[in-house]
């Protein structure tokens, strides 16, 4: 803990006034001004001491979640404990510093200040703050400052505390609509697909909910609907799960506009939402290939835990102008099992992506495999059909 005490600007003005009074006392031999200067100097010195006392015997505990989704409020709880046996720590100002460190974008350091009016000896005081982090990534809470300017505000004492904490902010999770379900469930004629049947019809019943447009009339639970006076339908565990492999084509033009950047975020959010959705239902295999300057690929059984792992990767992935597409397809091919549905989530059209490849590569079998995949081009507004963040996606 590094502790330092220094005069604030007001303190320097105050010292100037003391010097002025002492000057008057010396030049005119006025004893009363010596006394006045003494009083003023005494107040400053005692102030100095009180500031040091306020900072001694203080423990700070900060607790915060380690992960959350972009847009969700980050709740931080700070507790100040006074270890001393007497006296109080007055007007402690706790300053929390945090910064998004991954992806590294030179984000500014943000700070939050909390005031603890008085912490008596042997007691503790807790205060909370919420922070809306709307950008995905890894945020580092590296240090914190606790300061006191009590009682006059002329002198500030502060100490920096090493309180390393890390918060991963996942991409914003949106809502997949019914068309998405149909897309996943659709039986593509002529294609092989792996299906895991679960149950005899719609799946295992697990809850009731209100009726929505598009719900099958067969799902209506008539007895409950009669009781409630409105339609209630049964919900089932997913009847069938298909193996899904997602390929994120994070291409960003050389001179990217805000619209382009937003498109990348939209594609990542879509992917994150799909991962969460598939992980929640489980039961199938899930693969993810992130194509950018670097290629990342992960494959496993869809589960909340695996989804969380994928979200961690999605929260730090970056777009690039030079996407190594063919290598990505190579990875995709390696994890593609027979019948798995391949979804390409891209910021460009299939043709634009193909245009970056030479003819030989385009004609390869691997590339053809990709041509058979579902290609959702975000820049063409194709994501809107399946997904929303509550509002329209950028056109």
């Amino acid at each position: 803990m590094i502790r330092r005490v220094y005069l604030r600007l007001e303190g320097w003005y105050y010292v100037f006034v003391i010097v002025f009074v002492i000057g008057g006392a010396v030049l005119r031999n006025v004893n009363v001004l010596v006394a006045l200067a003494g009083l003023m100097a005494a107040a400053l010195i005692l102030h100095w001491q009180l500031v040091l006392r306020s900072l001694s015997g203080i423990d700070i505990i900060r607790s915060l979640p380690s992960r959350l989704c972009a847009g969700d409020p980050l709740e931080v709880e700070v507790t100040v404990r006074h270890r001393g046996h007497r006296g109080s720590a007055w007007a402690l100002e706790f300053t929390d510093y945090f910064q998004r460190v991954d992806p590294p974008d030179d984000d500014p350091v943000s700070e939050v200040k909390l005031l603890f009016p008085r912490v008596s000896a042997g007691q503790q005081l807790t205060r909370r703050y919420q922070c809306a982090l709307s950008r995905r990534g890894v945020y580092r809470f590296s240090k914190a400052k606790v300061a006191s300017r009590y009682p006059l505000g002329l002198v500030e004492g502060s100490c920096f505390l090493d309180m390393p904490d890390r918060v991963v902010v996942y991409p914003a999770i949106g809502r997949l609509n019914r068309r998405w379900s149909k897309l996943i469930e659709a039986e593509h004629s002529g294609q092989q697909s792996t299906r895991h049947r679960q149950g005899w019809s719609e799946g295992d019943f697990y809850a009731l909910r209100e009726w929505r447009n598009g719900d099958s009339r067969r799902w209506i639970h008539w007895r409950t609907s009669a009781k409630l006076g409105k339609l209630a339908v049964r919900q089932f565990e997913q009847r069938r799960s298909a193996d899904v492999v997602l390929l994120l084509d994070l291409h960003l033009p050389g001179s990217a506009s805000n619209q382009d950047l937003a498109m990348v975020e939209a594609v990542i959010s879509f992917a994150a939402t799909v991962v969460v959705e598939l992980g929640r239902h489980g039961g199938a295999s899930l693969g993810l290939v992130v194509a950018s300057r670097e290629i990342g690929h992960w494959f496993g059984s869809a589960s909340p835990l695996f989804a969380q792992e994928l979200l961690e990767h999605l929260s730090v992935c970056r777009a690039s102008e030079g996407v190594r597409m063919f290598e990505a397809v190579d990875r995709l091919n390696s994890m593609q099992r027979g019948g798995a549905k391949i979804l390409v989530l891209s910021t460009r059209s299939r043709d634009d992506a193909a245009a970056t490849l030479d003819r030989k590569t385009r004609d390869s079998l691997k590339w053809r495999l990709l041509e058979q995949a579902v290609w959702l081009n975000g820049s063409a507004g194709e994501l809107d059909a399946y997904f929303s963040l509550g509002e329209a996606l950028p056109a």
Partner: protein
Amino acid sequence: MTAQHWLQIHLVALCLLGSLFVALSTRSLTAPLGVLAAGVLSIWFTDTWKWVQLNRMLGNLAAIGAVLFSLRDFLSYRNSEGQLLAIATLLVYLQVILFFQEKNARLYWQMILLSLLQVVVGAALHLGVAFGVLLLLYTGVAISTLVLFFIHRETERHTELLNAPLPVASAIPWKRLLGQSPAVRVEGQAEQLKSAFLSWALLRQIVLLMVGALLFSAAFFYTAPRHPSAMWSGPRGFTRPETGFSRSVDLQQMGELLQSDEEVMRVHLLNAAGKPLPQLDPYFAGEALPIYEIDERGRAKWVSIGMSGGFLREPQSFEQQRERGLRPPSSPADAITIHASMKHASESLFTITPAYREASTDEVVRMDASTGLLFQVIRPDGNNPTDFYFATTGIVGGRQTPIAPEVRPNFDPQEGRGKRELDLCRQWGRRQQILFPGIQKLADEIVASRNLPSRDPILIAHSLEEHFHTPGNYTYSLNLKIQRDPERDPIEDFVVNHRTGHCQYFASALVMMLRSQGLPARMVVGYRGSEYNKLGSYYMVRQRNAHAWVEMYLEQDQISEDAVAGGIVGKGGAWLRLDPTPSSDDPNASNNWASAARDWLDYADTVWGDYVVSLSQKRQEEALYGAFQGDDSPTAAGFSWATWQESFRTLASWFGVHIGGKEGGKIGFDWRAALTAMVLSALVMLLARVVRWFWPRIDWSQFAFWRPERGRRSPVAFYNRLEDLLASRGRRRRPAETPQEYVDHAVRELSLLHGDALRSLVAAFYRVRFGGDALDNTEAQAIEKALTDLERLPLRDAR
């Protein structure tokens, strides 16, 4: 009330105190009342209701107007005091303008600074003890104002984030996706935050801060090095028609004279044993005025012969008196030391006659060879002392002798300057007979009516003096709004016509009567009838004690042996003091409590004046550094008890404890008592520390036997102990809580780690208390362990 309300009230109080510093010198309550009214009105109209709020532009314009207005006053004054007063008034105007502006941190700082400047200006205008009292008050209010201002600023800064709504996602899609800078919302209520500071603990902090500041300031003040030149002791530029000493007497004054309470000097009269001489009514002579003249404007005046270089003499000492063959005091024990501390350095010195030089007499003191009185030579740099030591033999047997021997070594009534001076004192020619026919006639009648056996000058003088004392003959009054006869000389007019006047008229009349009888007489001006302060053992001489009396010259053979108790009349003769002014009764004299209060006030003023306002380098060295300096320093050349004694004596005298005399008196210091006091003090401090350490660690439940319902013998004593322990750690049981709820809440609120053990304890309590069971050994041990663990937690205030 919020911190801001307290701040506003304190700020008004601070500005009010600042303006009172100015009011001390102006003696007018206009400024403080104006500040008070403006402050109170601004709290309501500007800060609360916001009806009147000068914007910055208007405020600046008003300030410029105030500066121009004050500039006119400033330029109209010729002296620096008046100009300072104009500045002080400007500060008041600026404060009033600031009161009616919207308050922010800058404005608060400005107001605090203005009030501080008022103190600085006030320090140059008035330095009485009232200034010290106000400074104490000001310190307290200023510290609390600064603390409240700090709380106000801090809470305002942090209130902005309190419960601020987190931003709604932007309606613009790309903005929403790219994110915005992190928005923050702090939980809490603004009012809670503000009121969290306002507590008794804060008041205690402010008081401690103030006491600490005063102690530090005292140490700083007394150890800070001083310049050898004299300290500033207040302005002297304001002249008012008040009573007071003057080196000449003008009998043409009209109107009413005001009694001035301004301090002139404090006089310690100490006998050879160093004991003070109380309850005298001493005459302190300042100037002798033998010449009565009427100037070209027709103004009647008494003036002195005048001083010139040739007439300056070293003051005489006892030894010189002996060498001249005069009869010295019968023993040194007859000599009385006069220690006069003058408020301001002045040319005139005031002593009891006859006054002699002694060892401590400053070198600037000279004797006026034309009068025999003492004065000081003003140095070119004006850096003259204000403390003087003289010796006198004019007090014998506890009273001032009426006859003072002539001390001038070359004074000869028969020739030279002595003769010429006495001729002036005897001057009664044809002109005087024309001017004062009534006086001559009256004096003749008085002397004739007494049927004196001889022309004994002393008897004649006392007869004439008695005439003025006879009730009904004359009226003493400071109000000179009387019907005067402009055709008559003022003295003749006084005796023949109105017979109303003050001491100067009485003295003038007696001088003329004595001269009409051929007796040499002169008027003497100085002070008489000072107040004796029992606390400080000194005489307080004020301007209202200014007095005029008469001295008649007696030749050596006109004085009997026993007429002069001091017995030192030589061939130079002596002067007989006569005071024709009837005594005026002081209505407060008999009022004991008023007199005591006056003594306290005077003494406080004295201490303030001596040890704050006029603390000089010399005094500082005497009391603080003396013991550590010089060859006889205990550290430099072995232990010097005498040096330490002297330092201790001086230091004690600062606090009104006068130990021993100046001339070798013994210090009443008992080392056994000092040692005992030191040991006792150390023991008390040690005991206090031990009690302070033990107090929180005492298990008070062991002493609860006198509380039957909570006694140890109760089968549920363990639960009572638990309640005590939890209460002393900040959580009392609330009335509506069951024991189980109480423990659950306490465990949660105090974050206790051994909550399960405590819950088991409560379960055991229920079983014992309501089920009639007894605890087995294992349970009792577990409960004891839980309670012991709880005892180890730190104490805190109960909520």
